[in-house]
């Protein structure tokens, strides 16, 4: 390239090729990234750094915050800090992986339905409608009863339950994009279905689908918590954050740290996921360029 200058006739140059990748997130986006990174690291290395295990109980029940127990203790006198850090593994791991799996599969199937013919669309749509007709918790119950409760199983169960929703969302977006002229141009060029799906349609539905992913993440955290409540989720003594909230609900009357902290953890993770999604560089650039 001889000249990449974007100045000239147009007063607002597209903010590409300027600054590092990170600064394009903006302050808020970077804050979200930091929180995500914190929980990611906590899930990966946290338990190894802790001086005591969350499984060791026997102390004072619902103890307040202190030097010994930074976040107090839970209803069995276990150290809350250790419980939350260990819970991060399940919540970040299971919920995030399940969300990505659900949204990813749903979006891909939706792209396939939109870009290929009427029959594929009809078959996929009716198939996934059938799945929607089965109540989520019931399906989870069945799957856990049939295949046993394990982390892998939980991920798959949560993903299966939320695929139809993501599919519906992505399909309605993709159908609209599919009718636009640039997709027609790509088809008359002779492009295959895969190219149309991934290059022409996907980038243009990515924004709303990411917003949907943020919402779906919250649902899955709640689903996991309720599965744990039924004794089908993460098995005690391990616990995800949702379960931590539930099992320490007795401390709510006193505003105890043992119930507030896991709630805050869920909130921080959810908000962080949504902040990062809302501030993704490509999306922000498009919106700035659009008007």
């Amino acid at each position: 390239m001889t000249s990449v200058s974007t100045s000239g006739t147009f007063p607002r140059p597209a903010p590409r090729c300027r600054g590092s990748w990170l600064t394009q997130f903006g302050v808020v986006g970077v804050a979200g990234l930091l929180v995500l990174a914190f929980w990611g690291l906590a899930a990966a290395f946290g338990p190894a750094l802790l001086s005591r295990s969350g499984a060791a109980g026997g102390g004072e029940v619902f103890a307040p915050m202190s030097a010994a127990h930074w976040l107090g203790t839970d209803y069995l006198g276990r150290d809350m800090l250790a419980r939350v850090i260990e819970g991060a593994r399940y919540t970040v791991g299971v919920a995030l992986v399940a969300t990505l799996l659900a949204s990813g599969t749903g979006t891909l199937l939706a792209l396939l339905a939109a870009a290929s013919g009427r029959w594929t669309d009809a078959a996929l749509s009716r198939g996934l409608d059938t799945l929607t007709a089965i109540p989520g918790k019931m399906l989870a119950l069945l799957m856990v009863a049939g295949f046993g409760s394990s982390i892998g199983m939980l991920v798959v169960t949560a993903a299966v339950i939320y695929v139809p929703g993501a599919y519906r969302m992505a399909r309605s977006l993709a159908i609209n994009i599919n009718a636009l002229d640039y997709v027609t141009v790509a088809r008359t060029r002779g492009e295959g279905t895969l190219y149309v799906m991934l290059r022409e349609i996907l980038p243009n539905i990515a924004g709303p689908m990411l917003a949907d992913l943020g919402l779906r993440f919250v649902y899955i955290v709640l689903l996991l918590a309720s599965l744990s409540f039924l004794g089908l989720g993460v098995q005690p003594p391990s616990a995800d954050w949702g379960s931590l909230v539930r099992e320490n609900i007795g401390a709510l009357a006193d505003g105890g740290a043992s119930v507030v902290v896991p709630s805050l953890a869920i909130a921080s993770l959810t908000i962080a996921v949504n902040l990062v999604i809302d501030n993704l560089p490509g999306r922000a650039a498009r919106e700035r360029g659009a008007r």
Partner: protein
Amino acid sequence: MGSPVVVEGLCVSAGDAKLVDQLSFSIQPGEVLALIGESGSGKTTTALALMGYARRGCRISGGSVHVGDVDVLALKPRQLRALRGRTVAYVAQSAAASFNPSRCILDQVVEPAVLHGKLRRAEAELKAIALFRELALPEPELIGSRYPHQVSGGQLQRLMAAMALITDPEVVILDEPTTALDVTTQIEVLRAFRRVVRERQVTAVYVSHDLAVVAQMADRILVLRDGCMRELSTTERLLTAPQHEYTKSLLAAARPSPRAQAPLADDAEPLLRLRGVSAGYGPRGADGQPAIPILSDIDLELRRGQAIGVIGESGSGKTTLARAVAGLLAPCAGTMEFRGQALKPRLADRSRDELRRIQIVFQSADTALNPSQTIERILARPLQFYKGLSGAALQRRIEELLDLVQLPRSLAKRLPAGLSGGQKQRVSLARALAAEPDLILCDEVTSALDTVVGAAVLDLMAQLRRDLGVSYLFISHDLHTVRAVCDEIVVMQHGRKLTQVARRDFDRGPHHPYYEQLARAVPELRRGWLDELDAQRPAPVLRAV
């Protein structure tokens, strides 16, 4: 009788940018003032400011607007609400988007009068029916009970005018009311508007980018560009003796002259030949006919290097014809031949080389470019796909293409959202040219562009044809445009080809009556054209448009 409007030093800004800068003008009672300019010139912003309204993100930052003796900009929101729709009424460009689709038309038309407490419901209904009659709407007593989707675009536009007029406003603002209509419909709507405006002596502001339309409507014309007034004078003087350079360029663009073209050799080989092509949508019946037939029995021959224009009203099947040739819609009867070989009806059956040789360019460049790909990637794809170019060769070719369509190379890294309408349309052309096609199907390529920008795109297309020898199938509803670039004109109506006129016969008649009707319907750039037209047919036929 209308009120005078006096605007002094009007400024509207969005952030730091000034959309309208120090605009002053006045309108006498009963006078029609036209605001004219390209998109982004601030004409709609000015019109809205007359009602004390600024769009989201904009702010009226200075000046004053007086309607009669009311200082509009000093009014409180409550008083403004009482003013709008009663003293000042607004007719928007797209009536289809302005009506509530789930309520019947009469309910919506009488709403302003009832809401402002001007008339009781029953009186308002009678008045609405009188207005429908005045606006030459068919079945004035019954049309109000229909829903917006049950009437045509031209009728809906007139119904919206009825809605604006029902409160007997003193000032009416017409914001590009005929831009979305095709020529024959436009003329009916113009005629209706003009009669009402004249008879009622309302003060009117007519916003448009089309000088020829404005010349029929306005007493005075204000030319806007970049939010500043360029020229303000009476319609006659502006048309005959424009002062400002920009006005001159507008006038030049409004009269598209035939682009110089080397005469086509008579023995040029036929490129595309259609025989008895019929096509339509929906499932096919037992007789092989689709449920909704659109095209029937089209014959067409296009020689190499030739440009054929296809004109007709909306719904005449012009776009369907292009879709059939492009392979997007398989014809149900007839044969298509391309370069002497049968052209397969379906896209999937055509070879990559056949696909490369036929490219399509769409009307709306906004939807024709993928908003998430840079211009560079958009142009690179056909080059990689058909020619397998990569690296420096690819880069060089992209730059050549940008040069070819007269765009600066620096645009390559931008996203389509950062380009103007004309630039986008040039990118669309460049993408088609990247395939080095024999035939480009142009579907209303200049319809969405301003006159000046559209004229520049037409120039470019004529030049590309001279330099590269591509052929065009040029679809348009605008006879002027088609005449400017095409060697032959095919006239279509109701999915049939009515006639074909060669360039040398453009001005020599007599032609098919429908061609004559289309030719007459294109507004001419002089005052009194509509009057002459009306004089030619003393008893106006009330036609459903």
